[in-house]
């Protein structure tokens, strides 16, 4: 036994190994990425298979194949990734699995790093798949371990749904040298049950519904749900039910308020352990349900109590006592509990702060995306252009002074939206920007669609040779796999040509003259054109040089400061000054009208 400090995502990976996982697939997405990253590091010594797949749908399909051959399988993604994987998931529940299949889907209330706050527990309910909701990294590890067993007992995939505050929280835990034992998979056994024809779906649907009740019975006995009685053992008129991480906030808020109430912690929000809840609520007149995001537990309890005609008032999101948006914390939950009990909220000693600078995230110093946006802004001068954006670091191109992102929706949408805009306003130039990993993920179908339907758009692939935003995972363009071994390189320009694009240019965005020429060519070409902006992410480069302003030659036009927005360029005494943050990309020196920026060794 040794004490280790594990991040929630690492804890899930350890749990998966302890549960005998044999195949792991996934697509990166904050806050889920470190689950697969950790497993990829453990895979070579333990001997299981790990891959970064090109998107969540493919990841799940690979996972399903493995599970039908009898392997224990984990598939990882963030909440919006599950939308991409929804097609296989919705029918998989009907087909069922042989080897345990666990989808680790991380939710992001807040949201901190996502396009929305969608609640994966609802997805579980929609797909009729059981959901586990951990409160802490240690519990996430136990759930990951046990989820395979539950999946095999039910022959259903199981969703493990941590949130950011479990994924990116660390906790001390005891770890034995990880024991890894895996059974030999039986292999795929042919049979009609694996072909989901309408007739089979009709036959399997009653089975699937029965499995929901079977899952409920398993959860009635689960240690992931438990009652904290009040310390003197009495039952009162009021009680609290809390789901996932909210349980932590409830416990601390009660301490803060100096109040003791019975609390039922729910770790299995779907299907809900009804009998456990019914027993817990015996004699209770009013219950407060505390859960982040949607009222998943609350609504199930209301339906259940109505059916039992139980005289319990359910309070929570339905009557505005508990917020339905945003991430919770102890203070918010203390406020909800105080209102529930009609006691004064904990004293808030308000601190009035002086004016603070607004500080949003920006593209890194030397980021090649900054150059790509600059190049296209130059190239479209005199044209009426719309820049459709996508999901990745380059979404930060929205910030001033670049202001080069007019839309962002979901992975790959830049291309489809540019084509749609073009159909309505053919007089404008529509330029889609997306990263290399995003292009592989979901950009390719959009590009083929643009070729097929003759959309006169320009697609800019910001190829920085990595999946940067989520922590630099490899992808099919990098020549490396999740475990680091060498892979076939899928060339983006060749792929675009194979899709039927007639004008494809590959340029280095840090060379502005050539890049602007290529951009103009693409913009003027009648029909879909692709520009691949090839330059590695700054985080992958070693900088041998940096740049500095030659004060005597600087005309103080401030073009570098005002057009690039590079965090390495500051204003000092009214003049541009290049700080130690400079990573040596040199783009500023190439756009300086006075040629007053020079390269020096770093």
């Amino acid at each position, binding site marked *: 036994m040794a004490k280790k400090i594990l991040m929630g995502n690492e804890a899930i990976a350890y749990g998966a190994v302890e549960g005998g996982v044999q195949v792991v697939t996934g697509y990166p997405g904050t806050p889920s990425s470190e689950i697969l990253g950790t497993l990829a590091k453990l895979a070579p010594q333990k001997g299981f298979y790990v891959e970064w797949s090109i998107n969540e749908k493919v990841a799940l399909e690979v996972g399903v194949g493995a599970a039908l051959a009898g392997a224990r399988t984990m598939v990882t993604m963030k909440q919006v990734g599950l939308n991409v994987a929804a097609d296989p998931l919705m029918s998989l529940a009907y087909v069922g699995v042989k080897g345990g299949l666990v989808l680790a889907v991380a939710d992001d209330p807040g949201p901190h790093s996502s396009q929305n706050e969608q609640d994966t527990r609802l997805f579980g309910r929609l797909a009729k798949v059981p959901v586990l909701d951990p409160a802490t990294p240690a519990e996430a590890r136990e759930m990951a371990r046990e989820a395979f067993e539950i999946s095999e007992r039910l022959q259903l995939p199981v969703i493990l749904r941590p949130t950011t505050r479990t994924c990116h929280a660390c906790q001390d835990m005891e770890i034995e040298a990880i024991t890894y034992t895996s059974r030999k998979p039986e292999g795929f056994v042919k049979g009609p049950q694996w072909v989901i024809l309408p007739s089979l779906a009709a036959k399997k649907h009653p089975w699937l519904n029965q499995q929901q009740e079977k899952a409920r019975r398993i959860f009635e006995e689960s240690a992931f749900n438990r009652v904290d009685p009040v310390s003197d053992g009495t039952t009162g008129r009021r009680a609290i039910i809390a789901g996932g991480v909210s349980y932590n906030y409830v416990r601390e808020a009660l301490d803060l308020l100096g109040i003791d109430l019975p609390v039922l912690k729910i770790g299995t929000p779907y299907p809900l352990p009804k009998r456990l809840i019914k027993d817990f609520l015996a004699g209770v007149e009013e219950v407060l349900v505390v859960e982040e995001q949607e009222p998943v537990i609350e609504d199930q309890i209301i339906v259940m109590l109505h059916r039992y005609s139980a005289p319990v008032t359910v309070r929570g999101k339905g009557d505005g006592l508990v917020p339905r948006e945003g991430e919770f914390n102890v203070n918010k939950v203390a406020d909800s509990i105080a209102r529930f009990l009609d006691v004064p909220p904990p004293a808030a000693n308000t601190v009035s702060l002086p004016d603070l600078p607004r*500080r949003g995230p920006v593209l890194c110093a030397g980021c090649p995306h900054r150059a790509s946006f600059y190049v296209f802004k130059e190239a479209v001068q005199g044209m009426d252009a719309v820049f459709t954006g996508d999901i990745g670091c380059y979404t930060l191109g929205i910030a001033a002074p670049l202001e080069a992102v007019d839309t962002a929706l979901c992975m790959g949408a830049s291309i489809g939206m540019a084509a749609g805009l073009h159909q309505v306003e053919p007089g404008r130039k529509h330029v889609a920007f997306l990263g290399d990993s995003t292009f592989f993920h979901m950009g390719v179908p959009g590009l083929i669609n643009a070729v097929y339907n003759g959309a006169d758009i320009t697609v800019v692939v910001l190829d920085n040779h990595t999946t940067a935003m989520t922590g630099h995972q490899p992808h099919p363009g990098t020549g490396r796999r999740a475990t680091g071994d060498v892979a076939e390189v899928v060339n983006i320009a060749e792929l675009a040509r194979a899709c039927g694009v007639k004008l494809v240019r590959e340029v280095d965005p840090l060379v502005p003259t050539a890049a602007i020429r290529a951009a103009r060519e693409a913009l003027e070409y009648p029909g879909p054109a692709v520009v691949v902006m090839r330059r590695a992410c700054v985080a992958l480069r070693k900088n041998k040089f940096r740049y500095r302003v030659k004060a005597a030659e600087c005309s103080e036009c401030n073009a570098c400061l005002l057009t690039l927005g590079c965090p390495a360029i500051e204003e000092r005494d009214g003049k541009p000054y290049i700080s*130690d943050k400079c990573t040596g990309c040199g783009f500023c020196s190439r756009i300086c009208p006075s040629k007053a920026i020079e390269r020096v060794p770093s």
Partner: protein
Amino acid sequence: MNKVDIVIAGVGGQGNLLASRVLAWAAANAGWEIRTSEAIGMAQREGMVSSHVRMGKNLRGAIIPDHEADIVIGLELAETVRAMPKLRPGGLVLCSTTSIVPVAVTLGETTYDTACLKSYLEQCGERVVFVDATALARQAGNERAANTVMLGALSRFEDLLPFSGSELRDALMTIIRPQFKDVNSRAFELGQQAVEN
């Protein structure tokens, strides 16, 4: 002492995460339970980041409630001020005088008033210790070791911590990559001395 809550506030790229890991490791080695909450993702790109480190017994969540932090370690001046609502009355503030002025200030979209921020901290009535962490880190051999300078400064407040200053240093040396040990060792010492003087 049955719990110690520490907020580390700064800007993405300042080594907030490393400082949080070192504190957690030192506390865990001293036999305490720990929870940390870290900012990973988009905010790491020059955005506001704050890590929470909780040490104690029977810990629950990883987020420190408002007015409960025993110590605020600010790696950047404005971010230290932004974290002040987390500080408990009578808590300790260790503030690096480093200013990271956002690009938005240059563009005239927001303002950064160093004098006003500093005088706010001086007059807030709490125990505030300023450390010129960037200069000391530069002296140690690398500006990026400013986070370690702040840990060195913290190590002077053993009465507020569940571990000794040397245990904190040991945790740092365990976690840091070998090639950065010398610089960080010097940075830690300079931080210690900054408080001594």
